[in-house]
């Protein structure tokens, strides 16, 4: 597939662009940093940054499974922290609105 693209690029380079473009981009190596799209970067339940796994998952070495959950109120927590929380109290710990999951990160 990569070869196909190169051939294509080659053809384009030799074609209509030849006279007006001295520099043609052939390969591009791009770097991006991802993070959870959250308003507050600390989980209010376990006090650990949401980018790190919650303490429970760190201890059990399940860092990769520790995702973030957003409520309708747009507050976010570790999904596992929130799962435990709602068993006692089905409200958002920050705004006391009824907890409704908006989305779960993956």
């Amino acid at each position, binding site marked *: 597939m990569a070869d196909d693209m190169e051939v294509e690029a080659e053809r384009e380079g030799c074609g209509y662009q030849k006279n007006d*473009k001295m520099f043609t*981009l052939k390969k591009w190596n791009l770097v*991006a940093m*991802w993070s959870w799209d959250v308003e507050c970067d600390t989980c209010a339940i376990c006090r650990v940054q949401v980018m790190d796994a919650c303490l429970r998952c760190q201890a059990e070495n399940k860092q990769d499974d520790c995702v973030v959950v957003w409520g309708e109120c747009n507050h976010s927590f570790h999904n596992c922290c929130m799962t435990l929380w709602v068993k006692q109290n089905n409200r958002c710990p920050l705004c006391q609105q009824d907890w409704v999951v908006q989305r779960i990160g*993956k």
Partner: protein
Amino acid sequence: MPLSNLNKHTAKGQQEHTNHRKRRHSSENHSPTSKRRRDILEEMTDSQKRANFSALTSPSNGLTRHASPLVNNKPGAAKKLVIKNFKEKPKLPDNYQQETWEKLQGAVEAIHTSHSIQASLEELYQAVENMCSHKMSATLYDQLKQSCEKHVKSNISQFLGYPFLCFVMFLKCMDNCWQAHCRQMIMIRSIFLFLDRTYVLQNSSVMSIWDMGLDLFRSHIVGHILVQARTVDGLLQFIERERNGEAVDRQLLKSLLRMLSDLQIYQDAFERKFLDATDSLYAAEGQRLMQERDVPEYLAHVDKRLNEESERLLHYLDQSTRKPLVTCVEKQLLEQHLGQILQKGLDQLLNENRISDLTLLYQLFSKVKDGMRELGLAFALYIKNTGRLIVINVDNDAEKDKDMVQNLLDFKDKIDNIISVCFGRNEKFINGMKESFENFINQRQNKPAELIAKYVDSKLRAGNKEATEEELERLLDKIMVLFRFIHGKDVFEAFYKKDLAKRLLVGKSASVDAEKSMLSKLKQECGAAFTSKLEGMFKDMELSKDIMFAFRQHMQNMTAPGGVDLTVNILTMGYWPTYHPMAVHLPTEMVDYQEIFKKFYLGKHSGRKLQWQPTLGHCVLKVEFAAMKKELHVSLFQTLCLVLFNDGHEFTFEEIKQATAIEVEELRRTLQSLACGKARVLIKHPKGKDIEDGDKFIFNEDFKHKLFRIKINQIQMKETQDENTSTTERVFQDRQYQVDAAIVLKQLKSVYQIMKTRKSLTHNLLISELYNQLKFPVKPADLKKRIESLIDRDYMERDKDNAIQYHYVA
């Protein structure tokens, strides 16, 4: 002379004297010879015995009388043969004792004067035996002693007679006299053996003949003050001559020293003086040679001396002298000079890596008290001083720092080699070495850790083909040893992580295996927590590959803008170093492509956001120069600058800055790499090494290079000063955060403990107790916060009526 031989001689020579003894003698001897039988027959003719056997005078009668009953009568009537004792005891002649002694004395004198003995030895032995049997032992012993004493006394004259006899002659004379004495005493003892075995053994107060001889020799010859003094002086002179390198008669020395031992005056008369002489000789020699010679020469000399002395012990000195003698030499030549030897020579030996001299030094020092300790301390001090010279760099000279790690590794190798080859892998030295390394390497804060991290980077980077995999592995192990000494491991981690990120993202890592190996070493050393983020970085690289595979499949159904081959590395924030967010202006087609990917990615991973990191991006550009086509490997920033020239011939610095929005310093570096480096794709006006505001750039159409693919993105791998500072600063921030956390915890604990013991306190009392307990300065506001925090957590509570009174909550 064997006893049986003597017996035979005596028996032959003494028949006429004691017949009854003779018979006993023959009965003792169970193998009678024909000669002995004849002797017995002769005895029968002796007049003394004839009376008892009168019946034999008429043999024919007796025979018939005896024969008839044997033939005719009953056996019971046979006549018995009765043997009776002598009626009277045989008597010795009256002058027997005197005569016998005269004979013996004659023999003794003959022995003393080295003449041949008149009587046979057997006869003499028999005479002694007879005298002893007739209770003359005591007299005999005294007479013998007198005779010997007289002779020994007479010998003294030769040692006193020539007062000016040279000591060599004197000693030879003494030796001869001693040897003669021994020979004579052995001979005399052989003759008087019976005396020695009966009388002497039965009387414990009497000395054996040999001991008597020694006693006489001791008291009359060597016991003479003058003679003894001359003998001992002579011996000492002999030994001194040998110590000065002359060859001497060791046999003579050995014989005379044996004499002293035998006479049991070796220790009193000789050894003490000998040790004194040795002591003063080596004390002086030690002092002198420490001044004159350098340390290796001196050590070799000491070794030579020790060998000589032990040879002396082997050849002539008594073994009992070994310990005091060796101690004496070691003390005077080594122990007295330990400090001086180490001070004067150790550094030189270590600097010049003189393995054999160091081995000798260690061997010698291990023999003396405190030697090991002193050497260990001096060795540790040397490591500290030398190491400090490598590490400390007052002017922060980059050239010097560049070689620091390599120098440290070489130094460590050298020291390790010395410890294992010269110092017998001594545990104490190894520990001392470790402590010293730890000491000096931390004398300079942070920089060694940083340089070690960079050294590892340089070895793990692509293009480092100087080492095979095994060599690299060994090198990494050595680096880990240095790393172990470092206190600021966080500094190492920060720089290592930064460099690892570049290696992974710019694709410059030499070998995945080596990277993984280094990672596992770090994990082993510092635990999983230390490396979990580094491992996360590798995981991100793997995940990115999967994502790119999915993305390419996704793109097959769409038309790729510009036909660019796009690769994206998605990094998890927190695992990687933090980079300055930088928004740059990309050409529209690139922005479009970027957006396509972003849409694709976020579609797969909801709840995430992406932040582009332009500093780490890199590209391959196809370029049409006047003469030929080339491919350039460039950073994203370089790309942005170059593609501008697709739309114009000439740009100023400001124009490029405006168009790309690259930060000024970064832009200067970028343009410098394009217009002032080895491969100059752009031409700068005016010419110069540095990029100034107002400089103009044009495309270099006549660019020539022998390669088709040209890499000019090395600047991405280089560390900028800015980057360096920010990495270090971040470490300090983290540290401060950790320190703060520790302080908070400690303050919380203190408040809690005080409340738990006091149960109830006013605010002011609590604060003053806290000041007493917390040793470091605290702000009252901080303490208030801790108190509030504990109240929040229900560890304590305010009094309901009095707001400044606290109670402990159980």
